[in-house]
């Protein structure tokens, strides 16, 4: 049980376990590790609160229905698992709005700036994942494992664009 309370697992152990978990999901759920479709379903649920007819008439939400399915429950489970892991490894888990160290070094402590850039980033992540039909889980882990052409195009495009952007934003002093 000492192993479960380590702060960090070596990359190859964590990676191997993710691979094994994915194979188990293929067999037991006839599905694959993935996350981003849930955000479309959840967005549909939220818009339905105000404009149910609009959601019912939307071509995308007719395919990706605003319902709770296997993947939706998976996304709800992720923070629970991360909490258990952090709790076992680092004892106390404090819920804070503290900004990441690297962010503060580059952009300072102004929360409004984090809101503006972080929210823009989130919108691009959500939109890009839906356009590409997958994210780092569905395309990255699962599609990559299946040698899907679509997923390797996604992975290459995502890494390249992120790296080019990082060059512009984090110029070395």
């Amino acid at each position: 049980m000492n192993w479960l309370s380590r702060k960090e697992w070596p990359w190859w152990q964590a990676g191997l376990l993710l691979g094994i978990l994915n194979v188990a999901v293929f067999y037991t759920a006839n599905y694959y590790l993935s996350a981003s479709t849930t955000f479309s379903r959840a967005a549909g649920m939220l818009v339905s609160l105000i404009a149910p007819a609009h959601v019912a008439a939307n071509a995308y939400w007719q395919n990706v229905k605003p319902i709770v399915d296997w993947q939706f429950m998976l996304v709800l489970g992720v923070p629970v698992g991360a909490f258990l892991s952090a709790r076992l490894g680092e004892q106390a888990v404090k819920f804070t709005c503290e900004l990441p160290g690297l962010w503060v070094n580059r952009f300072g402590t102004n929360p409004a700036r984090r809101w503006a850039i972080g929210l823009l980033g989130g919108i691009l992540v959500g939109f890009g994942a839906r356009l590409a039909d997958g994210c780092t889980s569905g395309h990255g882990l699962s599609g990559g494992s299946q040698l899907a052409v679509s997923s390797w195009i996604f992975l290459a495009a995502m890494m390249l664009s992120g790296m080019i952007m990082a060059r512009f934003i984090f110029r070395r002093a």
Partner: protein
Amino acid sequence: MGPLEITGAVRLVHGLITGILFGFILQKAQVTKYDKIVNFFRLTDLTVIKVMLAAILSGMVGVYFMHGVGLVNLHIKPTLVGANLIGGAIFGVGMLLLGFCPGTCAGAFGEGRLDGLLRGVLGILIGAGLYSEVYPFIQSNFLKMGDYGKLSIPALLGVDPWAVIVPSVVMLGGVLVWIDRKGL
């Protein structure tokens, strides 16, 4: 033969348990952190890509083995070159600005980092919702660009899957060991 058929409420519980395991491993891999993800794009800490590649390679061997003995189905997403390419490029820029992807953002919340939850979950919900709104336009104008259907690399090359898997594991496994030795 074939995968198990789990349905109804049991399937939902299965999803929740899978998510708990997924989040647990992501946190232990330390990839649910802004600094780790941004430093991957800056190429100053390659933990994220090491974990991802190890997961992809082990999953590859497992999934294709299980598929070979008829225990799992493949779920290959259609190749839409334009959408995969542009969507991936938009995703990469967003992931650098936000510092999280959808899964790690949910994991960061469990670790107590509300930074990920506030900007991440809200932003991704807005982005996904926006996509639904513009979908009819994209579908008729752009989505079918470079449509090759459900295509895998072995099918594209016309070879047996293991002719791709074995060299991939050897080469990418070698790259992993090499970058690990360099201390990245």
